[in-house]
């Protein structure tokens, strides 16, 4: 899922400085699960902003609402009136949620309340770790199901660099070396031969480097037209 964390309150206050009526829009999906932008966080943020702006001597009206999924039209269309009433929208969805509101409600001024961090999972209560870089060409089948694009600091494809020591990455003692994990996994499965083959330069055009990505499924599009 998408992992995000809330921006510092001072930064959020600077973003909404010109507004009087602010609508905080939370999202009930990924950012709820990572405790960054769900209903609870939307409520807390709205009251924090009300209190803080009051203490600053320029109180703002800050309301909040949370939709099930901020990245799909059908979930955000019903809040169109609430958005129209506000003179600024503070989205605490991920970056996709922010932009969905921008696209769907062209007149609204939308600012982000979160920093969208990465694609990952909670490895224990209160800890989230990156697992996927959405590179567009999955190589997990070659690496024992451990991604060196997302988890190696240098995105290496042909084994560990010289900075792998005692299982951790040289850049941070709390970061496991992805290639040590890959080596251990393949060794335990008697599949170390997978590491002998040289992996060719990656086709980064399927990643962000190829420009904004888009997937069109003609089968689904046609089906949609037929049912209309």
């Amino acid at each position, binding site marked *: 899922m998408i992992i995000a964390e809330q921006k510092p309150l001072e930064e959020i206050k600077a973003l909404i400085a010109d507004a009087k009526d602010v609508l905080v829009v939370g999202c009930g999906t990924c950012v709820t699960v990572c405790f960054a932008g769900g209903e609870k966080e939307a409520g807390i943020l709205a009251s924090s902003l009300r209190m803080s702006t009051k203490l600053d001597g320029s109180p703002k009206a800050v309301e909040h609402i949370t939709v099930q999924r901020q990245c799909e039209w059908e979930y955000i269309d019903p809040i169109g009136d609430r958005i129209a009433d506000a003179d600024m929208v503070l989205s605490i969805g991920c970056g996709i949620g922010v932009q969905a509101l921008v696209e769907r409600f062209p007149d609204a001024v939308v600012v982000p309340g979160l920093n969208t961090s990465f694609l990952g999972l909670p490895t224990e209560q209160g800890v989230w770790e990156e697992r996927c870089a959405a590179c567009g060409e999955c190589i997990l089948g070659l690496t024992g199901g451990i991604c060196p694009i997302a988890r190696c*600091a*240098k*995105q*290496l*494809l*042909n*084994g*560990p*660099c*010289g*900075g*792998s*020591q*005692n*299982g951790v990455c*040289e*850049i941070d003692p709390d970061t496991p*070396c992805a*290639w*040590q994990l890959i*080596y*251990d996994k393949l060794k335990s499965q008697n599949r*170390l031969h997978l*590491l*002998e083959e*040289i*992996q*060719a*330069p*990656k086709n*980064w055009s399927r990643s962000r480097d190829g420009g904004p990505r888009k997937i069109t499924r003609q089968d689904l599009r046609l089906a949609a037209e037929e049912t209309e």
Partner: protein
Amino acid sequence: MTKTSSNGYKSGSRLERLLRAGEFVVTGELGPPQGADGDTIRKKAALLKGVVDAANITDNQTAIVRMSSIGAGTIVVQEGVEPIIQMTCRDRNRLAIQSDLLGAYALGMRNVLCLTGDHQSFGNHPTAKNVHDLDSVQLIQMVVKMRDEGQFECGDEMEEVEPRFFVGAAANPFADPFEYRPLRLAKKVAAGVDFIQTQLIYNIKRFDEYMQKVRELGLHEKVYILAGLGPLKSPGMARYMRDQVPGLDVPDIYVDRMTEAAKGIDKAEKKARSQAWREEGMQITIEQIKQMREIEGVAGVHVMAIEWEEAVKPIVEGAGLLPRPEPAA
């Protein structure tokens, strides 16, 4: 079809010719300055001329901005020292690397060392974006393809002249996973690398174990392996490298020897103590070079006297490796 040069050498570099002739080679290291003063390079080159067979010109080493390796290498060529251009995957994508190598070749450079590159978080621009379009194994393949096939990475034929580099890479025998390291070397050999320079080695016994495995894989017959050595400057440096630097294995004996070296010299005599330490550090390196010569499959040494280029000559001389041989044409 593989292109070969008319003289049978891959690049014809001094380093290649000496290795092919079976000479025990000596390479050194020349770190470019954090400024644009060419005289710094000239002074360092003068210290290495006639002392090493080729000198590595580092490429933004430890991710700290310095004069470019190719820029500095051009001056080094002019000064009569053969450079080994270090090229990292951190700062350049495949387009930039290839175009820089074309320029480097045109400027007279004949050796290139293919590196992944230290992570930018260690350097003076930790908020920079890194590239890593290629990794070091893919970089080796690309440079070999440019030389042997006359093709760019994409497969396009290049115009005359193709850059004919003697292609090197690094190996860290003591990094983890330890048992994977010889296989990692095998991968670089399969990619077509011609020579290897290892990271700093102090634990010769453990390096010998690594070389045992390398010989079992027959790699020592496919690639020239230069063992990386570096003189210690002080007991503090020895302890720091033993305790703090990942991937370095410094046996206690060397830390003790460095400490002993200044014994009996009054602590106020700072200069004399430093001199005693440095002499012991150079002596240790001289002994290590002699030990390395006994290890089958070690084709030479890479002496890294970082910001201490003055030490290289007495070390090479002490090891009985001067004068350096002249290669056959």
